[in-house]
């Protein structure tokens, strides 16, 4: 392959909506220039191929109505540039850095709630039926959340969760990673030492057959934990709200999960504190549906 004039990964980041406004504008200007005609043609091919393979899902990125407020403020001469940029930037898809949902939890260092059942789907399936790729991807997302929290808190359950994650990534062909997870997540290894491995395990989600489901299940499991802890801020966070909006449009969302999501939407806190027990139950049902 000849060295491309434009870096393939930057173009991919543009397609994934991961560039900021300035980077995006700069890259598009380069693509439009006559010097980059071949790169732009390759980029168009990539966009068309993704559109076809993802069912024309070209995730429409909604720009918040607050943008108008921002424009009005600018016209009035008020310097709100940093805020405007944050409000106007397109939301990242759920598959982009699903670990960010864990970071939204208020008491991350406390680990998992006591007696946490991180595998609500096992009681349904009984392990008899073959696991589908979307279900395995969703389980990976949910279990990575548990693993992240367990490692952060030095929880002895981390080894068992790591073994669970290992069996899932093994399924996606990441055998060496699975071996590392089984061997290196131990009570005597401090969280900091496991961090690179954990980061890599999160990236493995992108290699799963349904990365969007990894992301959404990571949100759902994080939300379940937030509900158990009455963590209202988690549900108020912009990324959290967008995760639900985007999930509705996910072409890979199983029908049973879509039904649970619909039920869940009426329970999500709009203003004040919600019915926490009802919310946790609905989220558990959602995680179960995603992983089944």
């Amino acid at each position, binding site marked *: *392959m*000849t060295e*491309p004039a434009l870096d*393939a*990964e*930057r*173009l*991919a*980041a*543009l*397609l*994934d*909506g*991961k*560039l900021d406004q300035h980077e*995006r*504008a700069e890259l*598009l*200007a380069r*693509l*439009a*220039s*006559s010097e980059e005609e*071949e790169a*732009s*043609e*390759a*980029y*168009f*091919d*990539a*966009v*068309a*191929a*993704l*559109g*076809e*393979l993802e069912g*024309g*899902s*070209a*995730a*429409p*990125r*909604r*720009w918040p109505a607050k943008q108008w407020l921002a424009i009005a403020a600018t016209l009035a001469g008020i310097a709100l540039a940093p805020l405007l940029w944050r409000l106007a930037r*397109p939301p990242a898809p759920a*598959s*982009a850095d699903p670990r960010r949902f864990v970071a939204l939890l208020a008491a991350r260092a406390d680990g998992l709630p006591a007696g946490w059942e991180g595998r609500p789907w096992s009681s349904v399936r009984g392990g008899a039926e073959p696991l589908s790729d979307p279900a395995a991807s969703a389980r990976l997302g949910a279990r990575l959340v548990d693993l992240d929290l367990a490692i952060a808190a030095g929880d002895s359950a981390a080894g068992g969760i790591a073994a669970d994650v290992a069996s899932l990534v093994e399924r*996606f*062909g*990441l*055998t*060496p990673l699975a071996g590392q997870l089984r061997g290196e997540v131990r009570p005597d290894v401090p969280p900091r030492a496991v961090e690179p491995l954990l980061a*890599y395990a999160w*990236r493995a989600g*992108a*290699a*799963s057959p349904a*990365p969007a489901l990894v992301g959404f299940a990571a949100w759902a499991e994080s939300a379940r934990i937030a509900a158990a802890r009455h963590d209202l801020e988690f549900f108020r966070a912009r990324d959290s709200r967008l995760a639900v909006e985007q999930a509705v449009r996910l072409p890979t969302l199983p029908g049973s999960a879509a039904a649970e999501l619909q039920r869940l939407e009426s329970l999500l806190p709009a203003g004040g504190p919600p019915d926490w027990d009802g919310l946790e139950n609905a989220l558990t049902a959602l995680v179960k549906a995603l992983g089944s």
Partner: protein
Amino acid sequence: MISDRRELEALFLSQVGWIERVTAAISRRHGLPRDDADDFVSWAKLKLIEDDYAVFRKFRGESSITTYLTVVIAMLHRDYRTQRWGRWRPSAAARRRGALAVRLETLVYRDRLKLEQAGELLRTSGQAELSDRELGKLLTELPARLSVRPTRVEAEPLSDSPATDRADDLVIADETEAEKKAIGGVLQRLAPEDQLMLRMRFWEGMSVADIARGLGVPQKPLYRRMDRALAEVRGYLADSGVSREDARELLSEWTP
């Protein structure tokens, strides 16, 4: 970045299904017949594992691995095409008209088959049911092109000359190319994003949903934006002395 060879191999293996789907999608877009498409997927896989999985080693995690591989494979396709057929690529006009037009154009202009031979091949392979006359009509809608493959003059008697039997067709095709150049010149006066938007829509025949993703913008306002950009193009054409009627005719090729 991953450096362990076993992990790189595992990552590659985990993506083989996606790689095959992307290569197939790009092959379809460029009208590659099955043999060429199979050849491209094998070639692309070799390129992806070349130099100890260099493509995977370079991956920094700034995007999803699937999107990254899609862009890499699209770039590889450009290299593959150049290696096999020189600078050949289907015309925008053919891509807008769909897979059959791309295939027909490729057979006639790249592979230098006569229209009857191309028609026979398309019909027997089940890619078309059109008669030669109908295929000829489709061909007249495409720009006439010179083959990029070197050909021996003595092996190409005039009677074997490809394309159509009508001299008018070549004139029409030349006009189409001239129109493309004229509009291309005007496009350069637009903002970069608007240039890309119109190129994607009218030269590449892409859906508005795909364009929205390619530009990283919401889909809904794109329709109005596209209308505005086209109006701007009309304005520039008028400034260049092109009459309103001629501009409308010129743009009719580029608008749905």
